[in-house]
């Protein structure tokens, strides 16, 4: 079960990225544009735009291994979620709403630095989802930059 602190973080984070690997242990990176945690407290749904699909489903169906880093910009608070692929489906209207909320939050965070001239580029940076992928989260790690990075939060370290 993911602790409440991390559940609340998932709701306010605004940047994410996923990683898989193929049968030859070659890693692949995937842009993601949204995420949400199911009420069961351990199923993380990641939303993947068309641009992030290369190698994704082939890798997941081959070995099921997936890692997801989610970050809150500009604070740089970040966590990595590792788990197993469960299923995927085409993105639906509620997924698009999640991405829209993340896009607006990201733009609010970056605009003071980038300026209003960057609005079209920032809007395009968080793309609309094509796929929703469910992941059974088994481990959570701190990834906020600094000496504490890498500490495992879930399951708790003995």
């Amino acid at each position: 079960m993911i602790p409440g602190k991390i559940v609340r973080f998932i709701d306010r984070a605004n940047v994410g990225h996923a990683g898989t690997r193929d049968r030859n242990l070659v890693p692949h990176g995937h842009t993601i544009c949204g995420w949400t945690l199911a009420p069961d407290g351990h199923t993380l749904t990641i939303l993947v735009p068309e641009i992030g699909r290369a190698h994704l489903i082939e890798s997941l169906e081959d070995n099921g291994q997936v890692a997801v880093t989610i970050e809150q910009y500009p604070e740089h608070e970040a966590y990595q979620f590792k788990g197993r692929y469960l299923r995927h489906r085409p993105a639906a209207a509620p997924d698009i709403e999640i991405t829209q909320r993340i896009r607006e939050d990201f733009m609010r965070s970056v605009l003071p630095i980038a300026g209003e001239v960057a609005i079209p580029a920032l809007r395009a940076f968080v793309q609309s989802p094509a796929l929703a992928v469910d992941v059974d989260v088994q481990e959570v790690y701190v990834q906020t930059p600094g000496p504490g990075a890498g500490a495992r939060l879930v399951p708790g370290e003995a």
Partner: protein
Amino acid sequence: MAARLPKEIRPVLDNGIPALMVTCSADGVPNTTVISQVYHVDDTHVALSFQFFSKTIRNIRENPRAHVTVNDIPGLAKWLLELEFERSETAGPVFDAMDMQIEAIASMTGMTGIFKLRAADIYRVISVEKQPYPAHA
């Protein structure tokens, strides 16, 4: 076999926008992380900073393959790099230049004293691909 980095990627590598890196352990578990710097070494090599004894570093010593996504937000594109680790340098011109850039990035992002370069890890570029953002996000 190495791919050549196109000239147009040079300013993207210097844009200060964090990049995303994926590695994989010998037992097949992927790992994702945010990296602050991708340094252009020559037309077929880049260097990544080794700052902490992280899972990324352990993975690379077990399995040398890496995937890095570099964001060109103003240019409306991402660059995808497939890399293979070659060697680690703890002195010399690449290390010194990266160390100076890390200090600057740390200062700009409020991370002074947290970022410290231990080594410049040199990677061969296996492939490089530019992915423009779709016209309608």
